């Protein structure tokens, strides 16, 4: 168990330690600690590469998509779970069918669709795709949660004078907060890390997200290893720090759907 933990953790530590070294040091003493812990590599990445731009793009695309997914799926799930309307069951099944389908296999029509809509090479193409691909699982999880809430809460809220939206917003939404957190993390991590759709949709360097920008950066500075390691650390650090702070929520969010209950 301990040995395996070392196998897992060692490359990560190596990545972190190496990012403080100069290229010469990496070559001469690959396993030694750096002689001095200097931040030159990080400063260089921040200034020379388009890193701040990539970071901004990643933040914009991911946060917008996740916010839309969380908002829309909680509304949809609430309606599906709490109201009986003629098409509610087929609609639920329609959402579920999205669970079975790997969206990547539909990337060609999406690509042509975005081209025809003149959304090609925009963040909107990414956000629309992400929202569509994130909805089924989120609706599935949230519907399950909404169904467990007692009807009496709804009645009580009505008697106290809430309108439909207030019932949802003031009473139901706070109650499903844990599930909502799961949904947010479940979507945030894969979208933040996604490489495939940016690769297909984006050409303009100023629009690229971190994973795609990494490849540009790696191509430019391939021989400057210190810089490349620093770039990798900077690309993964935001998420790793969050992970260390909230590891149990992360693990729960990312395995949701595979673990029962």
């Amino acid at each position, binding site marked *: 168990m301990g040995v395996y933990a070392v196998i897992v953790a060692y490359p990560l530590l190596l990545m972190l330690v190496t990012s403080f070294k100069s290229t010469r040091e990496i070559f001469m003493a690959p*396993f030694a600690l750096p002689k001095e812990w200097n931040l030159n590599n990080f400063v260089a990445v921040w200034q020379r590469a388009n890193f701040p731009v990539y970071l901004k793009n990643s933040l914009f695309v991911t946060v917008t998509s996740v916010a839309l997914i969380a908002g829309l799926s909680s509304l949809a799930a609430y309606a599906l779970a709490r109201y009986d309307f003629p098409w509610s069951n087929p609609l639920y099944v329609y959402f579920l069918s999205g669970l079975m*389908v790997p969206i990547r296999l539909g990337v060609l029509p999406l690509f042509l669709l975005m081209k025809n809509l003149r959304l090609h090479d925009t963040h909107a193409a990414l956000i629309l795709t992400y929202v569509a691909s994130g909805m089924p699982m989120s609706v599935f999880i949230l519907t399950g949660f909404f169904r467990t809430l007692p009807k009496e809460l709804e009645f009580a809220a009505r008697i106290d004078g809430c309108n439909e939206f207030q019932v949802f917003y003031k009473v139901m939404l706070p109650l499903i907060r844990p599930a909502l957190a799961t949904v947010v993390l479940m979507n945030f991590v894969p979208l933040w*890390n996604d490489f495939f759709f940016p690769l297909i949709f984006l050409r303009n360097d100023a629009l690229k997200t*971190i994973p795609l920008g990494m490849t540009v950066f790696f191509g430019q500075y391939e021989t400057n*290893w210190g810089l490349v390691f620093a770039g990798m650390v900077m690309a993964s650090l935001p998420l*790793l720090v969050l992970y260390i702070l909230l590891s149990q929520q*992360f693990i729960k969010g990312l395995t949701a759907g595979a673990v029962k209950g």
Partner: protein
Amino acid sequence: MVYPLLSSLGYSFIEWDGYIRRGFAGFDNFRKVLFERPYSERLVGALKHNVFFFVVTFLIQTTFGLFIAVMLTKGGRLLRLFQTVYFAPYTLSQVVVGFLWLLLLNPTWGQINKFLTLIGLENLTRPWLGDMMTALPTIVLVNAWRWLGFPITVYLAGLQGIPVELEEAALVDGATPWQVFRHVTLPLLVPTIGMVTILTFIYDFNAFELIFIMQGSSGSPFYSTDVLGTFFYRTAFGDATTGGEVGQVGLGSAIAVLMFLVICVVSVFGVWLVRRQEVEM
């Protein structure tokens, strides 16, 4: 979600010139992909690599991964710490994982070969990713490094869901710890293992990023790490590495449809198998 897949099916029956429709093609695109060189050769090669990818990953996670999960249940206070470490690489982008291992495996100065030299296994050093024999297994191991935290976590949850009384009863009846595991714990865990296996299958048949990053879109050296994902990407969107051919929408769609069929048929069959197991208990 449904629209892109249905249109994929539609597109695969159409003759395309670049991104312009030409006319109805019938099964022509499928015929080309399945029976015409070089496509058929690449398709079979890629499919084999996907199967290898999945089978090896499956073997690693259901033996070693399960073993680790069982050990974790006995981990006590350290459980959370170990679990956090195991799961950490799964939160990394495949791009970072790919580049990191590309650097570690670098033949001239990468830490892996340097480490082998250091412990006196100099004759084991090799260009891991440049050798046709070792490239794909190396990629599979790198992927396992990132992925294993997921099955371990799910197995752990499954193991923790098994009532302690069952195992205790078996122990009282005189079973050895191995017998308890083999005849009590394992059968109860079969549905969990089944679900994880199906997810792994879907994930491995969609493999793309790691290979694209580490071995390029044609799965170098000489297509030895080519998988359906890279084959699809090359065909559908054109390939800068081989002189920038234009993407072929018809052929690409045909590959996507075939991939979808394989994934769909196998996972539906898998779910059916798992369900049957559940009923038996």
